[in-house]
């Protein structure tokens, strides 16, 4: 039998197998469900931006997609701390002013990156399934190198999470027995948990350090965030559906479609 030496040309060749994958499981199911889930969120988000009303006076419910409301076009009670810094010159839907921040946070999130690279861009659609693209440069150049600004969106998301928590507490104060108050509270908890479980948050707390023992408080914070971080994917989905659900619920109450006493 002939011997193949280490520098022989035949050793430079991979096994020639003509199919994209030999996987026999339903590898296509996860990217398909992810595609449908993220698409539903996008479609709902576009609809919600242009939908009115989004505020329930008295109960002080405000739909999360329209909070904080920062223009004079917002109903007076819906404005954050009664302020309207964008004045009356701004006439577009108020959601457009702020949705770029939580949207950018999710767009550049390490989990969502995985999910849409797989399900929308098929790069790759699943592990050990050949991707359809002839060339790949990853996140080394524009536009994908911009994913590196994720931590700035994280800072903004902390503020948005605080505002949604404030909205929920305000609703609870005004209507403690209202179903909407508790839905808003659950949504705020999930949004804050998702935000704090972020990989950038983990890095900022103490991930950048090499000597944990010299920074015990930061290390404890890192340990806490690391535990949350292990649940980043389920928190991403749970908070995405909760924000859609809470938003839709408030709009239905605001339109009078849901009108029972404890709504």
């Amino acid at each position, binding site marked *: 039998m002939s011997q193949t030496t280490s520098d022989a040309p035949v050793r430079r*060749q991979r*096994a020639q197998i003509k199919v994209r994958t030999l996987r026999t499981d339903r590898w296509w199911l996860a990217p398909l469900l992810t595609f449908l889930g993220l698409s539903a969120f996008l479609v709902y988000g576009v609809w919600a931006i242009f939908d009115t009303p989004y505020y329930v006076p008295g109960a002080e419910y405000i739909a999360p997609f329209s909070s904080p409301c920062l223009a004079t076009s917002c109903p007076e009670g819906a404005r954050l701390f009664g302020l309207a810094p964008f004045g009356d010159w701004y006439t577009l839907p108020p959601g457009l002013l702020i949705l770029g921040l939580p949207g950018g946070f999710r767009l550049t999130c390490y989990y969502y990156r995985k999910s849409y690279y797989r399900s929308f861009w098929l790069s790759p659609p699943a592990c*050990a399934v050949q991707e359809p693209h002839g060339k790949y440069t990853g*996140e080394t150049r524009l536009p994908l190198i911009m994913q*590196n600004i994720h*931590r700035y969106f994280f800072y903004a998301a902390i503020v948005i999470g605080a505002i949604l928590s404030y909205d929920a507490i305000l609703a609870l104060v005004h209507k403690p027995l209202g179903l909407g108050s508790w839905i808003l509270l659950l949504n705020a908890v999930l949004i804050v948990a998702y935000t704090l479980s972020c990989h950038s948050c983990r890095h900022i707390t103490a*991930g950048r*350090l*090499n000597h944990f023992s010299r920074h015990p408080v930061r290390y404890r914070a890192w340990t806490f965030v690391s535990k949350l971080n292990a649940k980043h994917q389920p928190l991403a989905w749970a908070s995405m559906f909760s924000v859609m659900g809470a938003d839709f619920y408030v709009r239905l109450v605001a339109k009078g479609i849901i009108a029972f006493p404890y709504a």
Partner: protein
Amino acid sequence: MSYKAKFKVWRGEGGEGKLEDFTVEVNEGEVVLDIIHRLQATQAPDLAVRWNCKAGKCGSCSMEINGKPRLGCMTRMSTFAEDETITVTPMRTFPVIKDLVTDVSFNYQKAREIPSFTPPQGVRPGEYRMQQVDVERSQEFRKCIECFMCNNICHVIRDHEENKPAFAGPRFLMRIAELDMHPYDVADRQESAQEEHGLGYCNITKCCTEVCPEHIKITDNALIPMKERVVDRKYDPLVWLGNKIFRRPK
């Protein structure tokens, strides 16, 4: 209980070859590597397979079973249906030497390109004093058995041979992270991770984590933290300014 299983095994030299059909006896408690050995013993004496410990610790018997990178010695036959045809191929990312044996020297080349542990000047071996809490993060990465399944499944080089010169693969980006997180390593790892070893190619689709037989959280604990460290260094003006104004702790 024994039964006859249907196998398709890729056989060939260099890149040329094909899947060959076999029907082979399977006994209770056996793993795929046992069946490959039975094929060698009974039907295909020249079938080439690399193996060593048969205990999931040497990383030698990496192969692709039903399209997924697996260790042959850790893949139980009981996880397959008895009427299922099991396909076994060599790792797809590396050149084939013969049958299931691939040339993994790409990985050794990449390993050599990473500067080794670099302690501070004046600190000699025996003088290192580290708290357990400071080193346990990188100890996770030392569980690696170098089966190279993570590099095999990474689409950056699996689907794009042309990226091999620029991309070290998850195994060696994890090695860089391990050194960068080491309390006594003073070499500049962050700049080189991005510029020389291709960290930016990683799009964190986590296949490396999915296939790791040691269950190392390669993406979450090594690659993403390393990406964040690179952001500190190259893309975050606030951190850059902070480092200029204050002496930030490491």
